[in-house]
């Protein structure tokens, strides 16, 4: 349950960081992404019995892509409509791209990007809770 708690902490941190007091938008995007990523890992373990050892077995690959692909694969096994899976996956990947921009690219991260990231994180959370 630790990852679920960390995921919740990260989304709360994302909101505080993007708020008018701090305006730390890049850090906020980072937290929004990890909130989603941690929740997906938790779901793979709790709902799909894909344990954490297996989740980190692919060190030679991009471990994040591995987790996102596994999640998508399990949703398809679960007979979730492909249009829904494709939509959620697209949003997760856009969030991942904005996290890369926020952490590594020499560019400004706007409040709009940070707010969109929080929105996406909330949406993915609601989707996962509905499974």
């Amino acid at each position: 349950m630790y990852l679920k708690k960390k995921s919740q902490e990260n989304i709360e941190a994302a909101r505080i960081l993007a708020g008018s007091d701090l305006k730390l938008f890049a850090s906020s995007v980072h937290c929004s992404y990890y909130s989603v990523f941690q929740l997906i890992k938790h779901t793979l373990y709790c709902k799909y019995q894909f344990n954490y050892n297996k989740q980190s077995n692919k060190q030679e690959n991009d471990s994040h892509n591995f987790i996102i692909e596994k999640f998508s694969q399990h949703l398809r096994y679960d007979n979730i409509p492909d249009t829904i899976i494709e939509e959620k996956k697209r949003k997760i990947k856009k969030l991942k791209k904005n996290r890369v921009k926020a952490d590594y690219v020499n560019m400004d991260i706007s409040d709009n990007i940070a707010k969109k990231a929080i929105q996406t994180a909330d949406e993915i959370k609601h989707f996962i809770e509905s499974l």
Partner: protein
Amino acid sequence: MKSQKYIKEWLDTLCKSFTNIHVQYAFDKNTNFHLVHVLPESYNNNEEYAAMVLDFEANFFKKYPTEDIIISEPDIDDDMSNILYEKRCESIPANINEDDHIDWNECFTDNMEKLGEPISYSNTVNIITPNIEQENYNSQYQFAA
């Protein structure tokens, strides 16, 4: 990059599978993401299209696990300055035989000139009908040809 060839080949297949589709593919060097924009957005609600995208992404991950790709509707946040591929495929009008000789480029040029936008012939145009609904596309797509 081998992955770019793989993506382009799949985009050819995608264009053959769906009518009235417009795709743009760019590689964002800042984030190292392959970005594919697909119009119209209504394909997002098409189960066959979604299945094809998910299958492709799963195969892409198997072949290129460290590379990232996003296939989406056009997004102003995406840096599409480095276009590697573009194709617009429209349905063939019912009264025209596919084998008839038609100068599609000429038809297309007429439409583009009416818009007063720059014309580029650097990219591939597959099958273009004389009735191009340019207003359905964002301004960045008015360069498409």
